[in-house]
C-alpha cells in the first residue's frame, strides 16, 4: 500500500494492481 501525506483533511492511498497483462496504479482519495 502506498500512502500520501494527509493534506487539507484528505488522504490518498494507492496500490499497483495487475489487470491481465497491464499494471494499474489504483489511487483512492478519501476525506479524513
Amino acid at each position: 500500500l502506498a500512502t500520501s501525506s494527509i493534506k487539507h483533511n484528505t488522504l490518498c492511498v494507492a496500490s499497483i494492481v495487475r489487470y491481465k497483462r497491464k499494471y494499474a496504479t489504483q489511487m483512492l482519495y478519501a476525506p479524513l
Partner: protein
Amino acid sequence: NTPEAIAIEQKLAVQSIRKFLESKTSYDVLPVSYRLIVMDTSLLVKKSLNILLQNNIVSAPLWDSRTSRFAGLLTSSDFINVIQYYFSNPDKFELVDKLQLDGLRDVERAIGVRPLDTGSIHPFKPLYDACCKMLESRSRRIPLIDQDEETRREIVVSVLTQYRILKFVALNCRETRYLKRPIGELGIITEGDLLRCDMHTPVIDVIQLLTQGGVSSIPIVDEHGKLVNVYEAVDVLGLIKGGIYNDLSLSVGEALMRRSDDFEGVYTCTQNDKLVTIMDTIRKSRVHRFFVVNEEGYLTGVLTLSDILKYILFEE
C-alpha cells in the same frame, strides 16, 4: 490524384480504419502501466476540484464505499451544475461549501438537468462498440468496467476518452494518410448559427450557453464575427478553484485570464483541410476540437472529435 481516385481511396481507408476499431478492444488502448485516480463520494466537491487541478485531470470515476460500487464519473458538467445552482440560490453558500460528491445528483434535480449518462463497457469488448456507446451517451468518455473475480464487485479498470481513441487510431492506422478529401465536402462540420459570445459577455451567461447548447465550448468573436478565443467547459474548474464563487460576475474575457500559461491555444482550420492533417495534429497535440474559419478568420463552423469519430464509424 483525380478527385474520384481520392474519393475511392478515402472510402477504402475509412472502411479499413473501421475494421481496425472492430478488431481491437478498449483494453488494447490502455498503456502497459497507467494510473487511475478515483474519488470517494464522501469527499467535499471543493476538495475534489483541488484534486483534479492538482493532478492535471478534468474528470475522475467516483466510488461509493458504503455500497462498494462505482458511482459514475465526476466531470466539468457537475461543477457547471453547482455553479448554476449557487447562482440561482446565492443564499445557499453554506450548503454549496459543504456539498459532498454524493450530493451532486440532488443538485441536478434542483436545477432540472438530466444526469449525464456515461454508460460503460467491458474492457474486452471491441473498441468499435465502446465508440458507439460513447456517442450514444453524449459523453466524451466511457468507463471500462470489469468484475472482481472473488467478490463480483465492479472494478473501474480505466476511462477511455474520444481523444485517446482518435489518438490511438492516428498512431496505429497508416490508412489515415489516404484521408485526403477536403473536410468541407464530407458534411461533418457543424455550421450555421453556432452559439457564440463576445469578450464582454458575463461568464455566467457563457456557462448557461454551455448547458443550453449541450456543448463543451463556446467560441468568442469580435464585433465583426472574427474568432478571437474560446471558453471551454473545463475552464470552469479554474473559475471556482478553492470553492470561491465570487468570480461569476467577471466577463468571459476576464475569466479566461485564469487559464494556466501552459494552455496550448485554440486550434483552427478551414474547409480545405483534410482529415489526414487533422489526425496528424491529434497525434501530436492535445486538441479537442477545430474551429473552422474562412480566409479572413471569420468563424464558419466547428469540427469536434465526436464529428470525426461519427464519420469514421458510420459514414462512407
